[in-house]
Every structure is written in C-alpha cells, then in structure tokens.
C-alpha cells in the first residue's frame, strides 16, 4: 500500500477516512482505504470497474456502513445509518443514475426531500412559488437558463440533470459534495460543462469528492488523487506530486499496461 502520511495542514479535513474496510459476506470490497477532503478542495477517487469506488461512496453517503477503520466528519468518528444522517452532516451525494426523478418537474426535483413549506397559518402547504423562483435563480447562478421549471426533468440532457443535482446540493447547504461518475454517460462538451460546475462548487468553498474512471477529467479539476485497485488504495498523492501521464499510466494498470503494450507491439 502506497499510502503516505500527510503533514498536518491548517485546514481540518471535512471528511476523513482512516484504514476503512468493508466486507460483503466473505468478499472483501474495500480494505485499508484512507482519504481526506478539505473545504475548497477536490479529491478525486479513481479506479477501474470493480475497484471499490461505489462501495467507498456508499459508506460516506450513508447507504452502507464500514466494518473496519474510522470515518471522521469534522474530526468526529461517525457511523451513518441512512442517507438522511449524512445529509444532516452536510454530506450530499449526486449519483450518476440516481440524481433525479425523471417524470417530476424540475422544481419538485430540486427541493425533493427538503421541501419548503408555508407557515402553520397556511396549513403547512408547499410554498410552490418560492420553490419555483428559487430553483430557477439558483440554476441561473450556475449559468443554466431554463425558463420552465414545470417541465419534467427527464426532458433535460444528461449533463443538465447532473448540474441541477449539483446546484441543488449546493443550495441545500452541502459542505461536502460526492459526485459519482458525473461524466461517465456524457459526451465531451457536456462533460466539460459538468466539470465546470464541479470547479464552481469547489470555489464556493465545498469539499468535493469526485469519483471517476477518467484520469483526464480528474486531472483537470483535482487537488488530490486516490487510486483504488481491487479494493485497496494504490496511490494517494497531491496534484503537485504527479503528472497527468503518470496518473493515466497508474490508472491504466501501470506496469501491466507497459507489458500489454509490449505484447501488442507490431
């Protein structure tokens, strides 16, 4: 394991994992994983299919619990039992395929699970006017201009849907944003747009954990890189310590790839 110890920095990590492990029955999905994310930083978690990326985010977002190690939020050891717990600690997750409910209007999606209601004198009914104008203005802040908040969110492009989910998380007060393969299903241009919003979230002072298997996307925005391979941490370094070529090579399997390239040489 190439996990180095970091010098203590001024900023306390918002979320930190220390030697976290997870088993499903007798299958070891993760072991000895450590990572940190601080406010205003993007930590990229890279790895091939089956490397354990999904398990890792499910632990931080409260869908699963870890069996070994520690999960610290603001330096406090925690164990989430539901996504609601994680949300209450300011950890919001945007899933690639679970981001939105396609048939529901944009504004209902934007406030789903955190609906804004009127005072008791108005029978606690939904404050639809506020939610419509707010979702529109919040999206506009991120440069997404959608005139009709009543249109089903399924009518938006994949990139726009991701952006709505990111804007929602920021608006709802997330301090840590976990993005699960936000660019996986997107084309080049849409990926660029999503990455721009990821950077915008960082600039807004959020800690971002970006899960991806694309080293190019990761290197564009990342401050830290954690590379997973078969459930173990293979690499953990700062941006200054690695080049894109090296990251790509490590990601692709490092020496294994060189061997493959040699084999395939014509």
């Amino acid at each position, binding site marked *: 394991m190439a996990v180095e110890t970091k010098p203590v920095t001024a900023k306390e990590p918002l979320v930190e994992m220390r030697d976290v492990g997870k088993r499903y029955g007798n299958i070891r999905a993760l072991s000895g994983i450590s990572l940190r994310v601080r406010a205003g930083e993007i930590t990229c978690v890279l790895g091939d299919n089956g490397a354990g990326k999904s398990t890792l985010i499910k632990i931080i977002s409260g869908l699963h619990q870890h069996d070994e190690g520690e999960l610290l939020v603001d330096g406090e050891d925690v164990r989430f039992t539901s996504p609601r717990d994680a949300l209450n600690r300011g950890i919001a997750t945007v899933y690639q395929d679970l981001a939105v409910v396609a048939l529901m209007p944009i504004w209902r999606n934007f406030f789903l699970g955190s609906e804004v209601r009127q005072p008791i004198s108005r029978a606690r009914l*939904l404050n639809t006017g506020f939610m419509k104008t707010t979702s529109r203005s919040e999206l506009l802040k991120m440069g997404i201009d*959608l005139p009709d908040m009543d249109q089903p969110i399924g009518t938006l492009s994949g990139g726009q849907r991701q952006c709505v989910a990111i804007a929602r998380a920021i608006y709802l007060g997330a301090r840590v944003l976990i993005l699960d393969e936000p660019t996986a*299903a997107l084309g080049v241009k849409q990926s660029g747009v999503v990455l721009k919003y990821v950077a915008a979230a960082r600039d807004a002072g959020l800690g971002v954990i970006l899960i991806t298997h694309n080293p190019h996307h990761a290197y564009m925005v990342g401050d830290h890189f954690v590379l997973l391979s078969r459930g173990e941490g293979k690499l953990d370094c700062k941006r200054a310590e690695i080049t894109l070529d090296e990251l790509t090579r490590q990601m692709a399997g490092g020496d294994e790839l060189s061997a493959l390239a040699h084999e395939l040489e014509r």
Partner: protein
Amino acid sequence: MGQTVDAGVATAPAPAPPRVTQRSLGRRLMMRPEIGSLVGVILIYIFFFVVASPFRSTASLATILYASSTIGMMAVPVALLMIGGEFDLSAGVAVTTSALVAALFSYNLNLNIWIGVLVALVVAVGIGFINGYLVVRTRIPSFLVTLGTFLMLQGLNLAVTKGVTGAVASQDVSQMTGFSSAATIFASSVPIGPVSVRITVFWWILFIAISTVLLLKTRVGNWVFSVGGDANSARAVGVPVNKTKIGLFMVVGLMAWFVGMHILFSFNTVQSGQGVGNEFLYIIAAVIGGCLLTGGFGSTIGSAMGALIFGMTTEGIIYAGWNPDWFKFFLGIMLLLATVLNAYVRQLASRR
C-alpha cells in the same frame, strides 16, 4: 439518457439565448394526466345523450353519479397508490371485509353499531398496513403480495361469516342502536331541487379535493410522486420511501372501510362473497384517468374521470336499452384506448 454529444445543449459558458422556451399552453395542458380521460368523459356523455333519451334527465344524472361514486371513492386511494408505484389487488374484498367486521362484531356481541364501525376501521387500516409492510420488507412486487391477501381475505370473508351466522351473509343490522345516525353519514340522500342525490357523491367530491391538495400542495404528495417515479433516487435525497408506501396502503384500507360502511348502511346486510373483481374496476378507473402503471405520474381527478366513464357506460347501456352483457366489452375498449393515449402522452413528456 444523454449518451450522445448534443450540440447546442449546455455548451456556452455565457447565458446563451434559451433554446427551450416556455411551452405553449396547449402543450402544457396535454401534459396533465387527466386530459385524455376528460375528453373521453365528454365524448361518452355526448354519445349516450344522443342515443338514449332517458340518459338526458337530471334524475338519471344523479344515478350515474352514484354509480360512479361507489367505484370512484376507492379509485382515489388506488390512484394515489399507483402514483406511488404499487398495486392493491385486495382493495375490492377489503371493502367487504370491513363491512362484515362492523356488522358481525356489533350484531353478535349486541353492541352499539358504532363500536363495530370503529373496529372495522382499525381492521381495514390494519390490512392496509400489513400489505404495505409486507411489500416494503419482502420487496416482493405488490401485485403478488396483495394477490395473496386478496385470496386470504376472500376466504376469511366466507369462512368467518358462515361460521358466525351459519349463512353467506351478515345479519340485518337495521334495528340496532346507532344505525340511523351511521346511515345518515354513510348512506343517506340529499335532495337537490327535484332530484335526490346520494351522499356518497358529495363524499367522493370531497375525497378528490383533499387528495388533489395532498398530491400537489404537500410534502407528502411530493414524496408520493418520487417513490413511484424512482424509489432509489428518492431514498438517496432523504425521502422516507418505506413509510410513504406503507402510508399509501393504509389510505387504501381507510377508504375500503368508508366504502364498506356505505354498503353496510345502504343494504343493512352484507353478502360475504361480494367485492371480488372490483379491485380491477378501481385500477381501470385510475389507469383511464392517466395514472401510469409504472408509477410516478397521475392524478386523482383523472381517476374520477375514469369512474365517471365507468358510471356513464354501465347506466348508459341500460338507458339505451341494450344488452348489458356488452358493458365489459366497452370497458375493455376504454382501457385500451386510455393506455395507448397515456403511452403517447408520456412520450411527449419525455421529449425535448
């Protein structure tokens, strides 16, 4: 999904002129779930108005509304449940169960009928809770779970009634204390001008109004749409998916109790075998009214349209002097037309 690079969408950093403009009023109306069934109601009304002269009187309108209300009241929670992504096949016999419980309990223990009514309420809501709990815990499709409870209730209705009364129907409750007050609430008629309208019509309208506000204007309503549209997404943003689903099943139980009380106090006695097959009428009303079978889309106003189509067709065929055997055939056509229309509307909805 956005697999392709969609030129034009989400390109410019600067706020480019909006490519998607406000949709036209016509397009927005088309998106309402109940719009297709509303057209159906109008066409069928005109059709029977032309071919069957007795259909035109206000008295027959009251009859049609009554026939519609008996199906329509149950179609309200069944539609809510369908929007929430689930079915309840036990809804038809649960109505009979609650009526039987109220009658058998209070008659045989010689109590005030209101006690039986309250016991039936607990039983009916309890049946809903069990259905919902089994569905969310076992993750078996609600179609199968409620098919099981449907058969169990059907058997219980017959067996317990025969065991207690020795016959296939409950005893006559019309002489019991509390009967007249209960009958006023559940089964009276309200004179409006020359015609008398059954009280269930007004209850039905009230239930539609309440459920519409609930769906569109409350937090729970938002959750109902989301658990039916995409339960995993809903859970990920903190919606209590299981509680919402169990609650919806309990609302079906609550309404089964209400309709059961109506049957008990209008007929004074309950046939233990009745109610079988009605669950499909409720579901048909909801589907004709624009509810998607897959959940996440629909309205209870639409279910009322579906129930009206049901009521107009049953009564209209009689008023027209036709063989009522044809009724189911027409209902089948309506269902097919509605399904095709819904599929088309959904396609429109997900198109840019």
